């Protein structure tokens, strides 16, 4: 990431800054922003994946745990920085990148499964979404569409632009997408820093009509949502979101929430987890003014991809449950997360229970690094099995069930 003067200026404007860019000191790096003076000797730092990925033969698969009757295996390796997953009509599995610049397709080649790069040179193509023959790719500042891509995996068509010119920002620039029942693409625009006043389309979930390009903000005050899906029963949008850092190990909690109406405000940067006023911005607005989260997931869990389960492979009680991938902490002295959880919710938007589903990536909560793998996204295959991506090892796992 390069931060040039123009970007700095844009940032200052976006952040509601009043200083002239020429005179302003460089802003604190987005991950570090909001760190207080007495945290200056902190040893907490962001984690990074292995750039080459790790072959399946070197993974500690025996450590992974799933409920009885379920089985977890490596679906494909060799996908360094594996992020969002999408599934094509013909069964192609597409995987995006955040720090690297490729989109992969996992295909079966004469009985052998292989992951190959189909798009390269993109700018943080974190989000991938497949709908009616088209692959959508969310880059850092735009969304592209590749029509008919499954017929041309070796020679993908030139993309068309769905939306361009999204905010340039140093933090939370990676995007995730969900297809709405209205045929619109829902996606996040994260907060540009850890704890700042966002610009008016930042810290939002927005939507764009892929045919007309019409853009609308759907929900605000969402610090950074890297997972969203529609409840097949209520057709309501659910999302996960990552809470601010540098307020200690115990809070605020990352959240799972639901959007009740267009324009709903979810609190950031004034109020976290529905009931915790921000030490800086909390004075400006009251928590009572905002939608409360449906569920507090826990502090520094880092919830990312989530999907409602609609398949028939898993036992009946899993129908319409949410699977949620948790990337795990960096900004916590005792680390947690690094798993996939199952959240049982009713159509009204209430949580009935939440429990671990796929665990065993965490090796030592106090070690650095504390884990050997980090779940990013979950995606249901046509046969009802569940794919899970891991950007630390560059691997996609498959969880299946049989009686």
């Amino acid at each position: 990431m390069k931060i040039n003067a123009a970007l700095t200026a844009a940032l200052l404007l976006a952040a509601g800054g009043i200083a002239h860019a020429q005179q302003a000191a460089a802003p604190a790096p987005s991950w570090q922003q909001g760190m207080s003076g007495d945290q200056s000797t902190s040893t907490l730092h962001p984690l990074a994946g292995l750039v080459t990925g790790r072959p399946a033969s070197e993974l500690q698969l025996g450590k992974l745990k799933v409920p009885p009757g379920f089985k977890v295996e490596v679906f494909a390796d060799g996908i360094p920085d594996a992020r969002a997953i999408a599934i094509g009509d013909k069964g192609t599995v597409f995987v995006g990148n955040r720090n690297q610049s490729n989109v992969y397709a996992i295909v079966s080649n004469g009985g052998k499964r292989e992951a190959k790069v189909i798009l390269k040179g993109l700018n943080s193509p974190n989000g991938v979404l497949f709908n009616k023959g088209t692959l959508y790719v969310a880059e850092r500042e735009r969304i592209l569409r590749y029509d008919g891509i499954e017929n041309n995996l070796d020679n993908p068509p030139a993309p068309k632009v769905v939306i361009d010119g999204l905010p340039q920002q140093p933090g939370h620039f990676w995007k995730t997408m969900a297809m709405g029942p209205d045929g619109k693409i829902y996606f996040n625009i994260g907060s540009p820093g850890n704890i700042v006043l966002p610009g008016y389309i930042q810290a939002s979930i927005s939507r764009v009509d892929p045919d007309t390009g019409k853009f609308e903000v759907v929900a605000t005050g969402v610090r950074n949502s890297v997972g969203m899906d529609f409840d097949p029963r209520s057709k309501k949008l659910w999302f996960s979101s990552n809470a601010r850092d540098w307020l200690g190990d115990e809070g605020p909690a990352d959240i799972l929430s639901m959007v009740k109406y267009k324009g709903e405000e979810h609190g950031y940067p004034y109020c976290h987890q529905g009931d915790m006023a921000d030490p800086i911005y909390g004075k400006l607005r009251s928590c009572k003014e905002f939608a409360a989260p449906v569920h507090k997931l826990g502090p520094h869990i880092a919830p990312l991809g989530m999907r409602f389960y609609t398949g028939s492979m898993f036992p009946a009680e899993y129908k319409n449950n949410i699977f949620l991938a948790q990337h795990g902490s960096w900004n916590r002295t005792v680390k947690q997360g690094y798993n996939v959880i199952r959240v049982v919710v009713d159509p009204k938007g209430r949580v009935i229970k939440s429990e671990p589903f796929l665990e065993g990536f965490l090796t030592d909560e106090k070690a650095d690094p504390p884990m050997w793998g980090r779940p990013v996204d979950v995606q249901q295959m046509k046969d009802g099995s569940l794919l899970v991506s891991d950007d630390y090892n560059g691997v996609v796992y498959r969880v299946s069930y049989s009686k």
Partner: protein
Amino acid sequence: MRARLQFQPQAGERKTAAGAIALAAVFAAALFALAMPSAVLAADIKAGEQKAQVCAACHGPGGKSANPMYPILAGQPAQFTSTALFEFREGKRKNAQMSPMAANLSNADLNDLAAYFAAQPAPPPLRQTTPANVAAGRDLTVKNACIACHGAKLLGQQQMPRIAGQFQDYLRAQLTGFKAGTRADMDGTMSSAAQGLSPQDIDVLADYLSGLPTQ
């Protein structure tokens, strides 16, 4: 044992490849005659040693360069070295001498080379920090959170290089490059960390870091 190795492996527990490499590095560096569980070794130090022969021409034997034109590779965390080689190979980081050296390396080469250099003890610093810059340098590394990422003693960990005891000119050039956006980095964190540094800060840091102990 080097302070950067914070993996604290427990008996009988398999660790990450990075952990395994670092663990192997401890064993190798300390010349333990214990049998090493070979299954733990993802990357191959022996293979790395072979592959590293061509590197010695510039980076010195075992990566212990004594020529400030070529950075010291000995004792760098494996994840950093494989990342740096990856960036050269992919053309994100460019250098007329180094880029061709990385161009044809496979992923296995990257990891073997990284494991080998991680297992070489870093040489002691070749110079002393100007006394006036000791406290100022220390302050800058706290204020800018260098210690959060590069470790309390700046010996590096995981994807973060050891910057203690590296060549002064090299450190200055890299920091200037990060600030200007001409030195690529894997995820933008280091470029953002350099934005707040003035040219004077960079001079102080290069002087301070190059004189720090490497163990």
